[in-house]
């Protein structure tokens, strides 16, 4: 194992302790359970394998989102992003989507991305809600800064949560206009948007932790993961 030399130690961000996100499950229309749980840094290399195939899918801006998620996760893995977290969605142990973000300050959350890998069950919306839940209800922050990189995202977050435009504030993802989820908006929309039960039964949690890589992707016709 490489030695952590002084130079490397200087490069690493000073990390703020963050309350962990308690795992939850949401019963889907199919009767299956979506389990949302927080990943640790060690899980990143495995998760990257689930995301990488999407980095070339132009439709619905999957390429933009997947590429940036990969770089955000690698930045976290290699200690170049401060106070980042990642929540994973699994169904029957298979990875179906993820969300990530970080604490900008103690009071302000910086939402990064929402990536729905499995389509058709509105999983992205449920995962986004879990992310906002983490910022507002567990990290007890005052607000979360959000941007949308696809029309779908704009519709689901900006319009459906009535996010407050605050274009003068620059979001870390670049020049895309910043919108803000305030505590007031969260309290207004939480009931309709944020589902889930806790705790996750042990057996269900064990299955979720298998984090099985998807073998096919609806976004990539003909794709089949090599065994």
């Amino acid at each position, binding site marked *: 194992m490489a030695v952590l030399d002084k130079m490397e130690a200087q490069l690493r961000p000073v990390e703020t302790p963050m309350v962990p996100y308690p795992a939850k499950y*949401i*019963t*889907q*229309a*199919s*009767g299956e359970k979506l389990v949302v749980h927080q990943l640790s840094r060690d899980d990143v290399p495995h998760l990257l394998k689930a995301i990488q195939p999407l980095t070339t899918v132009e439709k619905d801006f999957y390429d933009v989102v997947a590429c940036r998620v990969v770089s955000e996760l690698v930045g976290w893995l290699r200690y170049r992003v401060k106070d980042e977290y990642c929540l994973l969605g699994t169904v029957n142990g298979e990875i179906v989507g993820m969300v990530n973000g970080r604490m900008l300050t103690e009071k302000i959350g910086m939402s990064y991305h929402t990536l729905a890998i499995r389509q*058709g*069950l*509105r999983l992205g919306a*449920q995962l986004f*809600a879990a992310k906002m839940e983490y910022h507002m209800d567990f990290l007890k922050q005052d607000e979360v800064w959000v941007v949308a990189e696809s*029309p*779908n995202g704009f*519709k689901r977050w900006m319009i459906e949560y009535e996010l407050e435009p605050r274009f003068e504030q620059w979001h870390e993802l670049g020049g895309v206009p910043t919108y803000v989820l305030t505590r007031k908006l969260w309290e207004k929309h939480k009931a*309709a*948007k*944020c*589902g*889930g*039960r806790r705790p996750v039964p042990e057996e269900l949690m064990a299955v979720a932790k298998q984090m099985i890589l998807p073998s096919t992707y609806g976004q990539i*016709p003909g794709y089949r993961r090599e065994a």
Partner: protein
Amino acid sequence: MRGEQRLREVGIVGVGHPPFGKYEGSLMDMLCEAAVEALDDAGVKTGAGHGVDQVLVSTMGGSQVNRQTGVASALVDSLNLRPAMAETVENGPASGASAVKLGYMAIASGMCDVVLVVGGERMRVLSGWEATDFVATMLHPEAEYAYGLTLPSFAGMFTRLIMAKYGVTERDLAMVSVKNHENAMFNPSAHIQLVPNLEAITEDEDALTINPYVAEPLHLYDTCPVSDGAAAVVLCALDVRERFARRPIKIAGIGQATDTHVVAEREVPTDLLAVRLAAKRAYAMAGLEPQDIDVAELHDAFTILEVVESEEVGFFPRGEGHLAVRRGETRIGGRIPINTSGGLKAKGHPLGATGVSQIIELVKQLRGEAHGRQVKGAKAGLAVNFGGFGNNVVATILAGEEE
């Protein structure tokens, strides 16, 4: 309406129904695939001597969504069916059954022997909200569309009236949805291959998160998806049936009726008058009664429509359709199975293809080729294709011939 002179009888000798869902190619590719499948099924050889006299293409958005006009002429050329006559037919979501009706008329009149009808819609190029907007263009431009009113809006307001008057519940409607999704699992052409769990979408604490309201009191699982899809049938005069590989399924009756364009102007807001009149005319032409029908495809763009249509076509007394759902009478194996194909809810609703697709399901049932969803011994089937919010409805009755 019908004179003394006897019309020629018309049957269906070929069907083509590639899977509905998401299609990668062009509208024309999709139509051609369905057409070739139907021609092959009928045993019509493509190329010289094909014998197709007329081609009808039903599409609602060909021009508006896919920016192509003269679709039927283009299809004839792609399939090299020249010099067959060709027309594109647009009657909203009832375009498909309208095209079959016009094909029937072309043959019954003696003008043609063989007609190819192809319905298709390539909608997945649109976002959900663009698709909702496009479909809403069939509403009244000033009195409805300009307000932001849409088909789901009217379906929601209609549902509220029906619930108050007859005691239909959200759970009853969810049961319709689950039934249709179950049926679709036996239909390889269906768009959605997933059976929602009744408890999960109604009773579960998270039901509203995963099955949110779309237009109160209708939920996500009460509404059909946006689908790409094409479907084709070959019609022929029964007196030339020996030209074809398949036994014809007879078009026994067709009825059509219109209602007020503006939904608010309906005299009885809980009636679907055009459905009732269209079905009545189709029964009269076929010489059949509701109790003679063994299987039905009813236009369930919204679950509530299946319930009310099942009453308006005479399967159940008014206000009792939902009770029949509770008793399981509309399931396969029940008294009158409805939407064995999965219906629009689960099979998908590519507008211009839907009416043709419904008729194909009846053909499969009457041929005995519906596999896991077969209604045993089905002899007569009824399809209702519903345009606008019920302002233009076509009912079609097919009958299998005695062996």
